[in-house]
């Protein structure tokens, strides 16, 4: 079905106004599942974390995990939501093998958290994304479709189901329609997903790893002619699994729907799938009949009525949230906007802050993490945080430089040693003999030798060509294996030859 005519993005935006809606599912990082005591470890052998409750066996009864409810309340509070005083779980009935109970426990018309917002920034401008609801539910099992085109539902001969994921606490966050973003719509969508991920990560309630599926976005897009007041029909692109894909999916849908509308067609309300390799979306099932889940209040679980004391206690325990933190470090470290963005993107914010807490000065902490160590992480294809060097190590190295025991060049060798597992910075300095040669007598001896070995250069300097000293400084550094103070060596060379 590649008969679609895409309208170039700018042209589409000249005629149409996009309206977005984003539904995000986040798996909470609790130790056990939502309604049973099965472990939730990612990547476990299939069907090793299952029990009668999450397999939906007759007679089993769910009991709500308190930690999951605390997790969703923390998310709700961070999103400026009202935490309702009373609500129920609802049974969402559907017959599909990813849920062995033949229903999913969810929430319907009584979500736990309502009416919040999240401010996101795009190109220096703030957009307020309003949150409709945040509700609690359980994740489904994972199906592997075998036969036909492998991994695809179409043409599969049979499916193999692993229920380890079934019943893992899942929080669904639904935005209100996001309007008036114009050509920034794809960026706003991405910024929202990014900020939401940062927020939830800061709360420590989920690892929010999109590539592992612990955060997944469904992106709704519709177009209306510019100046119109009635929204168009929306498409829903499911399970978009990277931040970049969120942006691309919105962009593609704008181009595609503009093509449909320009041709006098009608956008079909349907589910679409994002294709990572082409950046396009393809049509999923179009619903023959309206979804009919026959929701009703879950009879096996009593209502939840989070006390105001509990909610306030959770509010008081909230950590500093990303937006507040960014404002603080920008101020404290004297950063430009771009510098802050680089730090955040490099995943260095925590590391730098911890390094400063260990006594390093902000500029030095930032310099080591963002230059030297970032380079090494890139070389190894690792995340900065995965390098076998701690903020305390970096603080110690920067302390050694500050006190003059080593210089920057030696510091790099210290990092070599630490990363190679040779021990703490002090141990590496000791073992590798990396101290700056600050003994003037010893340095003087080396300089005398270097002068003697390079009579031509020495003569030039004597004749007034002070710039030639560089060659001798280089020789001194080489002779001391980088351990001399280059500036001091230069001073001494010139002193010896010109006075």
């Amino acid at each position, binding site marked *: 079905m590649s008969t679609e005519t895409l309208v170039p993005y700018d042209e589409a935006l000249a005629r149409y106004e996009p309206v977005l809606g984003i539904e995000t599912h986040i798996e909470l990082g*609790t*130790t*056990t599942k939502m309604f049973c*005591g*099965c*472990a939730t470890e990612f990547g476990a*052998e*299939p*069907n*090793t*974390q*299952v*029990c*009668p409750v999450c*397999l939906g*066996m007759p007679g089993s009864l769910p*009991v*709500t*995990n*308190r*930690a*999951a409810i605390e997790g969703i309340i923390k998310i709700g509070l961070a999103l400026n939501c009202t935490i309702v005083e009373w609500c*129920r779980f*609802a049974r969402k*009935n559907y*017959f*599909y*093998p*990813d849920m062995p109970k*033949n229903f*999913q426990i969810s929430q*319907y*018309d*009584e979500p736990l958290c309502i009416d919040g917002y999240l401010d996101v920034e795009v190109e220096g401008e703030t957009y307020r994304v309003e949150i409709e609801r945040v509700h609690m539910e359980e994740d*489904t099992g994972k*199906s*592997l*479709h075998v*036969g036909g085109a492998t991994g695809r*539902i179409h043409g*599969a*001969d049979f*499916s*193999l*189901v*692993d*229920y380890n994921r079934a019943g893992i606490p899942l929080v669904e966050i639904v935005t209100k329609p996001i309007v008036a973003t114009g050509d920034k719509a794809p960026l706003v969508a991405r910024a929202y997903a990014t900020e939401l991920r940062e927020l939830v990560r800061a709360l420590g309630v989920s690892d929010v790893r999109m590539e592992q599926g612990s955060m997944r976005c469904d992106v709704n897009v519709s177009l209306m002619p510019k100046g119109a007041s009635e929204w168009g029909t929306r498409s829903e692109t499911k399970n978009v699994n990277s931040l970049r894909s969120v942006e691309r999916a919105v962009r593609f849908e704008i181009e595609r729907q503009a093509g449909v509308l320009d041709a006098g067609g009608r956008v079909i309300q349907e589910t679409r799938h994002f294709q990572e390799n082409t950046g396009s979306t393809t049509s999923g*099932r179009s619903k023959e009949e309206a979804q*009919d*889940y*026959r*929701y*009703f*209040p879950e*009879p096996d*679980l*009593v*209502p*939840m009525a*989070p006390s105001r004391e509990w909610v306030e206690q959770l509010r008081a325990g909230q950590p500093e949230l990303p937006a507040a933190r960014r404002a603080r470090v920008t101020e404290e470290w004297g950063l430009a906007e771009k510098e802050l963005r680089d730090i955040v993107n490099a995943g260095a914010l925590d590391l730098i802050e911890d390094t400063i807490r260990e006594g390093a000065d902000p500029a030095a902490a930032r310099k080591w993490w963002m230059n030297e160590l970032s380079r090494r992480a890139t070389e190894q294809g690792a995340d900065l945080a995965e390098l076998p060097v701690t903020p305390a190590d970096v603080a110690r190295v920067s302390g050694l430089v500050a006190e003059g025991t080593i210089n920057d060049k030696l510091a790099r060798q210290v990092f070599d040693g630490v990363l190679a597992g040779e021990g703490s910075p002090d141990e590496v300095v000791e073992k590798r003999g990396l101290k700056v040669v600050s003994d003037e007598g010893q340095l003087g001896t080396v300089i005398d030798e270097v002068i003697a070995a390079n009579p031509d250069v020495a003569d030039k300097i004597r004749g007034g060509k002070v710039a030639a000293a560089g060659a001798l400084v280089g020789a001194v550094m080489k002779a001391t294996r980088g351990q001399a103070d280059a500036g001091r060596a230069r001073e001494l060379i010139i002193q010896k030859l010109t006075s």
Partner: protein
Amino acid sequence: MLNEHAAHGTAAAGQARGGGAITREEVAHLARLSRLALREDELDHLATQLDDIISAVARIQEVAAEDIPPTSHALPLTNVFRTDEVRPSLAPDQALSGAPAAEEQRFRVPRILDEEA
């Protein structure tokens, strides 16, 4: 009638169901949702039975007054929670013991139609 209930969700779940409770078409719709392949004669049979059952239950309407909120839970309890501690799971062979078919330590199920939740 049932479609209307679905549309209104839980709010409507406890409300009036009236007499002449369920049609044959509605039973066919429910069967489709439940992935049950009912024969024509089974549909006739079940429609009649279900109609009787629902009509019987509907008699509750005769006593339910406007100002009585629908009851979803008989127990006067809220906030029943457990601590986040691991309990033993089943061994995979136990978990799969009731499965009609298993493969690669997974439940093997028939080809899934082109639809999902």
